């Protein structure tokens, strides 16, 4: 090894920025390959598209930033961007990986191999924590193996590009094994789409390195840095990294408070606090200023603030404890001050509500029905386009209520909803509703006289009392549960399982209903989507009345894209 001449020794902010930009571009070019791996041939929020959009959000404003920012700052900004822009479950997991990486690089000017390795470890932990029930054979398995591979490689004398090479190779090995871990992949004859997405992302990162010499933040990497890194490597790093030991404990205290007074000097307070920690947020007006900071010494924060006004709602958390206790959710990312103040102004003008109800819905008909049932706001999205976390956060901020009931109404929006819940300073209850029909069933329980907790429990219970049937078309050839599907075929799904393929829309509806209806069911609720005329729908409804004389048939215009019919049976 030849000291400074060894490319890829230290990663600077500019290098990381280039990496993210290149990876985003690279991902965009390959997203269709990932989309094609979707197990279900339904027009769904595709994994590739969701991850691509998440990366685009991550690197959206990176070009505008100065290239000499510390690597930790670039990572932090990208992570924060991705948090708000994350779409779909795989997008949310990717954004959590970026959060962890940012956490690992926090406060660093540049990053060497060992910092990068540690950042990966953080990434894995964050990704796992984002998922309530981690499933092996998914992006998580791939992420974990990437981390393990890079950890083992670190003991050898390699450069940054070589480290990425090893990481990618480990990831690919894990990816190949995903069908063995997840039967649904095996049957479909594919590997996990999210896992491949992660590898594509790393390949993009690697691409930015080929022919590109790392600048170490455009400053010369000092001999000292190199020597230190070398020494550490020579001493032999432990093979297993204990995350608790490797915590960056320089700014562990998440400190939040409100300073009240008159004629408060916001800018001056911000400047006074700047040196006391990171993730600083100082927002408000002349009478009240909200302060949020990750501080080395929270006492100094309080001391500084009391020089400006009276202190209220003081909250200090040791984030290391939170992390260990999986309570890191209160470690919130910075909120853009302007946005926060703007949003507060608008919301304060609204009548205060005891609780707000937000539903994710696709189609104007569904949106109207949810609103009529008591939803305060609709986040448009769902099957065809999973909404980004930010849309959900914004909707929650736009309701003047401290407590929020949130209905994701799609299994692929679930993580984004849970993520959004962690990002707002409100008490958020995410209802276990995985389809719009389930969402509507749960909305029947909503009652202002019940406590929020009672409402939430009852809503979760009721969401399970309806069977959801879907009629759409196949987006690709596939074989699922022994049923062969050709691209373009009309397909029918009951409770997410593919049951019929290749029939007409009407026959599919009939077959699905016959397949699921028992003597317990009393009502069939049909929502017809785009591409079905009201006349068509009424003719079908008449046919159903004749076919199921003992059941009530209810017909509504859902207006949902891509799904001819969404049907609830209960």
């Amino acid at each position, binding site marked *: 090894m030849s000291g400074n001449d060894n490319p890829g020794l230290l990663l600077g902010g500019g290098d990381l920025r280039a990496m993210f930009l290149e990876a985003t571009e690279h991902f965009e070019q390959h997203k269709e390959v990932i989309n094609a791996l979707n197990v279900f041939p339904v027009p769904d929020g595709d994994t590739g598209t969701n991850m691509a959009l998440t990366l685009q959000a991550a690197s959206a404003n990176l070009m505008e930033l100065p290239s000499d920012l510390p690597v930790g700052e670039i990572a932090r900004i990208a992570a924060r961007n991705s948090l708000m822009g994350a779409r779909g479950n795989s997008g949310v997991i990717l954004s959590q990986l970026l959060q962890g990486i940012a956490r690992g690089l926090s406060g660093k000017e540049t990053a060497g191999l060992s910092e990068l390795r540690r950042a990966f470890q953080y990434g894995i932990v964050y990704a796992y924590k984002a998922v309530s029930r981690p499933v092996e054979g998914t992006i998580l398995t791939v992420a974990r193996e990437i981390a393990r591979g890079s950890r083992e490689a670190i003991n050898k004398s390699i450069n940054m590009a070589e480290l990425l090479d090893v990481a990618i190779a480990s990831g690919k090995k894990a990816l190949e094994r995903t069908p063995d871990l997840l039967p649904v992949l095996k049957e479909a004859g594919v590997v996990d789409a999210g896992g491949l997405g992660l590898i594509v992302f790393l390949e993009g990162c690697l691409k930015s390195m080929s022919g590109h010499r790392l600048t170490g933040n455009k400053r010369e990497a000092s001999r000292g840095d190199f020597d230190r890194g070398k020494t550490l490597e020579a001493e032999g790093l432990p093979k297993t990294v204990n995350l608790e030991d490797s915590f960056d404990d320089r700014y562990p205290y998440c400190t939040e408070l409100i300073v009240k007074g008159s004629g408060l000097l916001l800018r001056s307070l911000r400047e006074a606090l700047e040196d006391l920690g990171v993730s600083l947020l100082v927002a408000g007006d002349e009478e009240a200023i909200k302060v949020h900071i990750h501080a080395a010494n929270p006492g100094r924060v309080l001391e500084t603030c009391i020089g400006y006004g009276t202190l209220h709602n003081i909250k200090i958390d040791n984030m290391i404890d939170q992390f260990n206790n999986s309570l890191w959710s209160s470690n919130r990312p910075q909120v853009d001050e302007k946005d926060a103040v703007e949003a507060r102004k608008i919301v304060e003008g609204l009548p205060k509500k005891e609780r707000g109800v937000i539903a994710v819905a696709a189609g104007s008909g569904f949106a*109207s*029905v949810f609103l*009529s*049932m008591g939803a305060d706001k609709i986040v448009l999205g769902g099957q065809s386009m999973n909404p980004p976390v930010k849309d959900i956060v914004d909707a929650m901020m736009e309701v003047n209520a401290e407590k929020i009931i949130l209905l994701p109404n799609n299994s692929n929006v679930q993580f984004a909803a849970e993520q959004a819940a962690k990002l707002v300073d409100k008490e958020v209850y995410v209802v276990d509703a995985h389809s719009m029909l389930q969402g*509507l*069933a749960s*909305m*029947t*329980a909503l*009652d202002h006289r019940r406590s929020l907790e009672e409402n939430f429990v009852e809503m979760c219970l009721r969401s399970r*009392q*309806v069977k959801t049937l879907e009629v759409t078309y196949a987006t690709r050839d596939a074989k699922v549960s022994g049923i062969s599907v050709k691209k373009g075929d009309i397909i029918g799904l009951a409770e997410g399982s593919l049951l019929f393929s290749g029939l007409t829309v009407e026959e599919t509806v009939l077959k699905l209903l016959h397949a699921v209806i028992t003597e*317990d069911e*009393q*009502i069939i*609720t049909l929502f017809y989507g785009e591409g079905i005329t009201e006349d068509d729908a009424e003719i079908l409804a008449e046919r159903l009345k004749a076919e199921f004389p003992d059941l*009530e048939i*209810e017909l*509504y215009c859902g207006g949902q894209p891509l799904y001819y019919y969404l049907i609830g049976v*209960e």
Partner: protein
Amino acid sequence: MTVRIVTDSTAFLDKETLEKYNIAVVPLYVNFEDEVIPDGSIPNAEFFEKMKRSAKLPFTSQPSPGDFAKVFEKIIEEDNDIVTIVISSGISGTYDSAINAAKAVDAKRIAVVDSILTSAGLARLVVEAAEAAAQGKTKEEIVALVEDKKRRLRIFFVPDTLEYLKKGGRIGGAQALLGTLLKVKPVLYLNNGKVDSYDKVRTMKKALERIVNEVPPTEGPFPVMLVHAEAGPTVETLARMVNERFPEAVITVHELSPVIGTHTGPGVVGICFYAQ
């Protein structure tokens, strides 16, 4: 001297019970375009048939103070005290008529109680009051008994549609359910004497489960009154569900009087029981 019990027609007590306890009934009225029918004067099936044929939904009216006065005077002449128990003032003006009549006839000897109930709930109060009277309880004792019991009786009901309650102006707190685009089965109840929404579900089966769930577990035999208007099969299902859940419940099935049926519409089922 004894205490006689007076009620109105919405209690819809059968002839046998009325005779047994010597209970006097003052009827409300159903006003069709072509005729005025005292509540309960024609069989229910005939009434609902007439309602179906009628181009315009009939409206109902309370008894006049004079209707009550006539009944009161006759009882007072026989030197009896009177406890009058009437339909909730939250859904009918009957209470006002009874109060005014009592003042005109003999305010000291006539007590008027607002039952805050109707139908089987009112019927239950009236029978318990009559039993107390038969045991020689005083007017004051009977009023105290009724005041206590009326707060513990619950009525839940599921109309087939909210249209009748809306048209009759008795929809109360269930108004909120009118705006839902998704068709729901409203589960309603009498909330301190007024119609209010209790829940909304999608199917009659769930609605029945919902109201049966409200019945508190009670040791030993206890009364459960089921009510309906033109909903025989549904009320049978309801009876079966109650019996399965509470084998010891003493289940009785009551029809709604035409006046109440006018406001709920046919197809309604309900349940009445003691809260504890």
